[in-house]
């Protein structure tokens, strides 16, 4: 049996969540992006003047920046951007309890497969449905501990000083064209603050969902983990399949203060017509620890490189990235670690699978500034190719300005080895089983990092489906 048929059997590239829920948005902006749309968004949200100015300036920056000429193919994107709605708000008010959530939205979640039991267990669920947070709950004891887990709009409204102190200090609008676009039209996303010393055992979770044809989604998340705190935030995305292109451009800013430990997990399974262009960056202070766990399975093109700026002595950054590119998909992903302070350490592990005409590219930066003495960094990239039409690239940038640094980068590209297959089949497995086992083994180092209770996206999409395909 040809290898691609076997992998087809793994079901990885079948888009399961192809359904549309009917509901009427309360407000929808005009198509396309212009000053009027930006002013409308700001007015709809009842924002302070400084935020409107921030948005308008970002719009100017967006218009002045050329389309990136690196990474994925963005040649069709301009047309898409003229056609999408930059703002859709489905409901007037934030929901406080599950019972108040509209039936159609509940249906959507159900079909996504969040089990009833798990919903109860999940500590806080900030679910983004279209552009606005529609459902938001937080365990009582966390509220007592002073944890803030709000929609980004509420964060701005209810915690204006804290918000303004950190907002756009990690990812300024000028950083790149899509950060500028997001800064102009952001809507939805989370605002998280973990007070000093507070440790959360259950993860904070937000589901993001795009459900409006030709609607762009521009979520903006700002997270501050104060000194000595510890938390895990999980974001997962699925979207129904439409025939026209769609677009998602988020900005995630995270500040990890001294001694804090924070993990941010994304499992991205956008439908295969989605452009997913995201800027995720963390500023990591003294002895703090940041982990990005980034899974990219869906979308037409994803360009996303979670970053750790290790600015405090002893700071640590981990990036664990997995990409699956099926027919017509391009996953251009990776990570950046920037060592600024002494004794900073980092690790990037990237695994990718390319199948059919899929292409996965690793793009990464490891930079050690002068003065980051005893910096240590290690990067490992493994790419698995399934077909002769598949493609993989590796584009690491390693910039070392400090003698007393130790930096290593290794990458390998391979296809599923005949020897491996032969060995497993000689142990009595079918070729199909052997293939599945090898693919699962390949991604296992990343899959095992996910918390058990997060059995919704990756577990479903990879482990269960693959296991189901065996035998």
């Amino acid at each position: 049996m040809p290898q691609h048929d076997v992998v087809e059997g793994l079901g990885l590239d079948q888009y399961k969540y192809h359904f549309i829920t009917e509901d009427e948005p309360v407000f929808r902006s005009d198509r396309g992006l212009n000053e009027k749309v930006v002013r409308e968004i700001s007015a709809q949200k009842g924002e302070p003047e400084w935020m409107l100015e921030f948005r308008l300036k970002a719009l100017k920056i967006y218009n002045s920046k050329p389309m990136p000429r690196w990474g994925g193919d963005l040649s069709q994107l301009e047309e898409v951007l003229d056609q999408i709605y930059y703002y859709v708000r489905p409901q007037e008010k934030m929901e406080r309890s599950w019972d108040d959530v509209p039936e159609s939205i509940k249906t959507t979640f159900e079909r996504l497969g969040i089990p009833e039991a798990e919903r109860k267990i999940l500590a806080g669920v900030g679910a983004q449905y279209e552009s606005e947070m529609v459902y938001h709950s937080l365990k009582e004891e966390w509220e007592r501990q002073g944890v803030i887990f709000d929609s980004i709009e509420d964060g701005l409204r209810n915690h204006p000083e804290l918000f303004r102190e950190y907002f756009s200090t990690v990812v300024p609008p000028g950083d790149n064209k899509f950060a500028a676009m997001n800064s102009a039209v952001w809507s939805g996303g989370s605002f998280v603050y973990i007070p000093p010393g507070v440790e959360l055992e259950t993860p904070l979770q937000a589901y993001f969902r795009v459900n409006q044809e030709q609607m762009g989604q521009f979520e903006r998340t700002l997270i501050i983990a104060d000194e000595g705190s510890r938390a895990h935030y999980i974001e997962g995305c699925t979207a129904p399949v439409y025939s026209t292109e769609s677009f998602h451009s988020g900005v995630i800013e995270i500040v990890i203060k001294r001694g804090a430990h924070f993990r941010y997990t994304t499992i991205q399974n956008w439908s295969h017509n989605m452009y997913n262009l995201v800027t995720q960056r963390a500023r990591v202070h003294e002895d703090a620890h940041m982990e990005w766990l980034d899974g990219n399975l869906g979308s037409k093109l994803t360009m996303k490189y979670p970053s750790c700026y290790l600015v405090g002595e002893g700071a640590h950054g981990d990036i664990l990235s997995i990409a699956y590119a099926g027919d017509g998909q391009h996953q251009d992903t990776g990570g950046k670690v920037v060592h600024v302070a002494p004794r900073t350490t980092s690790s990037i592990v990237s695994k990718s699978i390319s199948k059919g005409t899929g292409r996965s590219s690793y793009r990464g930066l490891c930079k050690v500034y002068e003065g980051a003495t005893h910096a240590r960094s290690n990067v490992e990239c493994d790419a698995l190719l399934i077909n002769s039409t598949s493609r993989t690239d590796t584009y690491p940038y390693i910039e070392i300005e400090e003698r007393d640094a130790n930096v290593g980068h290794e990458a390998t590209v391979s296809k599923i080895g005949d020897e491996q297959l032969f060995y497993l089949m000689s142990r009595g497995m079918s070729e199909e089983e052997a293939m599945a086992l090898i693919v699962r083994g390949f991604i296992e180092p990343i899959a095992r990092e996910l918390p058990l209770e997060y059995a919704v996206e990756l577990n479903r999409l990879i482990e269960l489906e693959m296991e189901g395909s065996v035998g």
Partner: protein
Amino acid sequence: MTTATPVIRRPMGTVEGVTGAINRAAVTRLSTEEPSWLRERRLRAWEIYESTPMPTTRLEEWRYTDLSKKLHLDDLKLLVPDVRVLREEEYPDQVRQTMGEDRAASGHLVEVDGAVVHTDLGPELESKGVLLTSLRSALTDHPGLLERLLATEAVPPEEGKFQALNAALWTNGILVFVPKGVDLEIPIRVTRWLSQPSVAHFTRTLIVAETGSRVSYVDEMLSGDFDSQSLMHSTVEVFAGDAAQIQYVALQRMGRGVFHMSTQSTLAHRDSTLDTLNVNLGASVARLDLNARLLGPGANSDLLGLYFGDHDQHFDHCTSQDHVAGHANSDLLYKGSLDGSSRAVFRGVIKVHPGAQRTDAYQTNRNLLLSDQARADSLPNLEIEADDVRCSHGASAGQLDQDALFYLMSRGLSRAQAERLVVMGFLGEVLSRLPLSGVVEKVTHAIEEKLGYA
């Protein structure tokens, strides 16, 4: 103040890189007595040069080498090659010294300030049809070969701004031709000397080894130290026919004040072996563009590089392993150590074209940082469009192996001695992969000189 798209700032009405010396008239002058195919080729190359913008750091390939700061084209005159033939006792001391170490050779060629002042080749080889000659003489004696291979398939002017400039303004160079089945057991040795500051020197090398032949070629480039910049631009085109074996070695030991640019392209056909070793020790700025093309099954290319920077030296290595055909191998190893405020850039790509199945390609770049001000940038890229391949790359940067140092010192060596040994051991790996007689000793000695040991 504006947020408009930034543009490259340039005085209005001038074309980048066209100067009082480097201009179309210079190209015309150079080609007045040349065959028409060459004149046309030069003029076309000039047009490409003029219409290609000067590379800036916004181009990926030039990200780490800012020509607006490093290259002073406006101050350069064109080198006018001296046509007289020198007697050996008239050679510069450094040339005589290095030739003294190179007695054992299949042939010698000496170039002083762009003029070939000496060639010798064993009479037996000559009778077999081997050629070792200046490009100027070859224009008269073997025009067909040059018309076919010079700046056509290997390094056409479309490759880039400076490749075009070289194709327009080259004054002389070297042709090596080895006919079918002829085996040169010991290397051909070339020594070049540049004595003049403030000049631009464009030279080309063409090496052709026919089916089943074998040749090794060592090109050593020397110069004095200059207060004002000289540019040496060298284009090297190497063709290995089926089952031919070529070893190409470039030893760049030029003086301070020199900007050395080298564009090399190697074409390896079926079952051939085409290895290169580039040693960068000298010059203030050295830029290498090396493209190794694997064109037939069974072809094999090793790409070796060694560099040692000190003071404010700046080395930029840009390599590609281009697997056009399947069932071919390439293996790259570039290692360097950096002292003072020197800087090294390595950008390499393994490109496996669609259909190039059964490719084995490897790439390793390792940097040893010896000082706080030194800097290393490494970009080992992979672009793989076939699935049945074995490809990997690795890059690292770090300081001296402390355990090794400690061990050597515990055996009674001084810290300085131990450091030298560890550096030599680190770099020695590269030389051990291409153990050409004379080369290992010479490079070892040159590095020891830089380490202040000799």
